[in-house]
């Protein structure tokens, strides 16, 4: 059955988390909750990227006991998405730290974290 394979399960979970995160970003009014939703979207995209690189019955791209140097190409999963996710995690940390700092600035300015109270750009 196709849906019960590991890569399909992780990909479905990734899409589900993506939906949850997007729903959170557009429906929540508290800025901290929006930042948490943003982190959920971030994580879901990592999950999607890794499951795209997964190949069944293969192991991690590290040459050692399980993987020989000569036929590594037939024994490992795709290392490129994993390197991309490594980059994405670090960028995600930076973005989350920046978002939290901006929210702190907004709180100092307005004494509130409700998005409805920030209406200086509305007319």
């Amino acid at each position: 059955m196709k849906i019960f394979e590991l890569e399909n399960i992780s990909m479905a979970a990734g899409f589900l988390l993506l939906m949850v995160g997007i729903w959170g970003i557009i429906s929540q009014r508290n800025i901290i909750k929006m930042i948490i939703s943003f982190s959920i979207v971030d994580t879901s995209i990592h999950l999607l990227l890794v499951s795209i690189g997964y190949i069944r019955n293969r192991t991690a791209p590290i040459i050692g006991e399980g993987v020989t140097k000569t036929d590594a190409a037939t024994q490992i999963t795709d290392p490129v998405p994993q390197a991309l996710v490594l980059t994405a995690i670090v960028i995600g940390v930076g973005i989350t730290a920046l978002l939290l700092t901006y929210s702190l600035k907004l709180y100092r300015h307005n004494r509130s974290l409700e998005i409805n109270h920030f209406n200086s750009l509305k007319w």
Partner: protein
Amino acid sequence: MKILRNSALLLIVGFMAWMMIHLYGQYESRDALNPVAEYYAVNGPEETGAANLVTSIVVTYRGLDTLGEVTILFLTAAIIGLLLRTEKGSRKKSVRESSEFLSTASGILIPVITLIGIYIFMNGHLTPGGGFQGGAVLASSFILVLLAISNKRIGHRLLDYTEAISGISFILLGILGILLAGGFLDNRILPLGNFGTLFSAGAIPVIYSLIGLKVGAELSNVILELNQIQGEEEEL
């Protein structure tokens, strides 16, 4: 008004769900590597000498991306420092002293956590790990330092020097790669050594250790900035 808002929300989420169901339906699991990944798998161990192929991609093949990534982290730390800066002298902290348990336990734990962080970034070319992970572990030991000695002010200077020196050495090693080997950030400026030992893979362990120090210093700086406003928020 509420009905309008909820139906708009439902419309957007429904459209996204429809799009994602189609993406999911068209996905077919793969049974072979694509050409780029196959090149890295076949030639990576010979060309870079690193047992961990992800490390050989992150540090050597896509080393320029990693330089950009480190720059983004640096920019984040700099922007946070700029935004949260307050006037000198106005900072009064009235934080309770840390308990006996916390200070004793962190005295034991801080050296161990720091050692684990250093181990992780030095073995990045052999085991699943590397500079970014090791740097994050180092920063977590710094959180423990901040918790244990919360009533003292900790200077930025050591962190700033660590960050600056490791960043400059990273770029200098990259330029040495142009002069002595095949190109920017080429790791063959040092001998490749025995495959699978600590001193192998040319400059990869050196570069990853520098990245680890730099990431650890940057994340610690971010935590320090966010920590220093804590006492002053309570006064307001």
